[in-house]
């Protein structure tokens, strides 16, 4: 609402305060917005009372006591696991790849085709500009940064292929 201009936000009304009080207590508001609540609560005893009541509820909700798990809980679960089926499926699974070579190890946006393409594009344009003699110091940084997603993805692929060929050699 008031995210862009820190100082121009009108002071909070009581209605606005009550409405946003939970978010204020949740800590999900941005700083300027949070500050408006803080200032209003400092001045307004009615809203402060409501604030304190809600805060009490939050603290209670956060401290519900844990109930002890029955001692025999695990046995029935463990008895039902299809261990043999999993073991039988294991050789069929192509993986046995270290976690850092898994695709999921890299954040999804790094793996996204568009991000990789744009990165390579930015890198090539920057490289071309740098070669033409546009002396900006930013260009080499852009070249390197643009290539990072593509290089990471390719290194993972290389690693996986290397492992696969080692696996074939073993068996």
């Amino acid at each position, binding site marked *: 609402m008031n995210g862009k201009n820190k100082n121009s936000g009108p002071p909070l009304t009581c209605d606005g305060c009550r409405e946003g009080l939970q978010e204020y207590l949740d800590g999900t508001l941005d700083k300027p917005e949070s500050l408006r609540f803080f200032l209003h609560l400092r001045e307004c005893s009615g809203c402060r009372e409501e604030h304190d009541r809600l805060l009490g*509820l939050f603290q209670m909700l956060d401290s519900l006591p844990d109930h002890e*798990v029955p001692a025999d809980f*695990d046995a029935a679960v463990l008895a039902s696991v299809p261990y043999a*089926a999993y073991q039988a499926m*294991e050789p069929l*699974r192509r993986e046995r790849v270290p*976690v850092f070579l898994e695709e*999921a190890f890299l954040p999804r946006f790094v793996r996204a085709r568009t991000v990789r393409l744009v990165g390579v594009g930015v890198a090539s344009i920057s490289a071309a500009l740098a070669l033409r003699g546009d002396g900006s110091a930013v260009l080499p940084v852009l070249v390197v940064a643009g290539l990072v997603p593509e290089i990471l993805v390719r290194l993972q692929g290389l690693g996986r292929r290397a492992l696969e060929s080692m696996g074939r050699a073993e068996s």
Partner: protein
Amino acid sequence: MFDRHQDLKTIRRCKRGEEAAFKEILERYRGAIYNLCYRMTRNSEDARDLGQEVFIKVFSLLDRFDENYAFSSWLFRIGTNHCIDHLRRNRLRFLSLDGGVGPDGEEYEFQLPDTGPGPDTVLQRKEALERLEEVISDLPPHYRAITLLRHDQELSYEEIAEILQLPLGTVKARIHRARNQVQQMLAARSYDI
């Protein structure tokens, strides 16, 4: 709060059929799941049965687990849905006493006259927490689940949105309404916490 990376490693070992890995997952999550089920049903036998069923289901479906998501989110999703299904199935049992179904399929509750201690009684903190648990267990199941995920499991709104597969805005709106309802119910029963 939960270590996503460590979970993934353990799940890989589970998929190889290592019994010890299943025990590790139980060790890590049985308390959270049991308590979720307990607070959803407020009954220790139901909580044990439901909790066990959740793990049995999860352990038999590991091949369907999408590793792009956190295992904990998947587990809590299955746990939450399982409890809500259970409450739906058993709704007739309670219908006449304390609730009904609204036009959008969500349960609502009637206020029962309060027979508990009045506002003058000074309640100990422990008793206050018990009252709060009671009120939470009388929330409509969706509100109950969301309140527990947020406050009991201390998950972020983003994680809850992933677990319940709801938009972030809906999650926030629901939890705000759930808390308001808790406050109203506490007031209606003259529970001073």
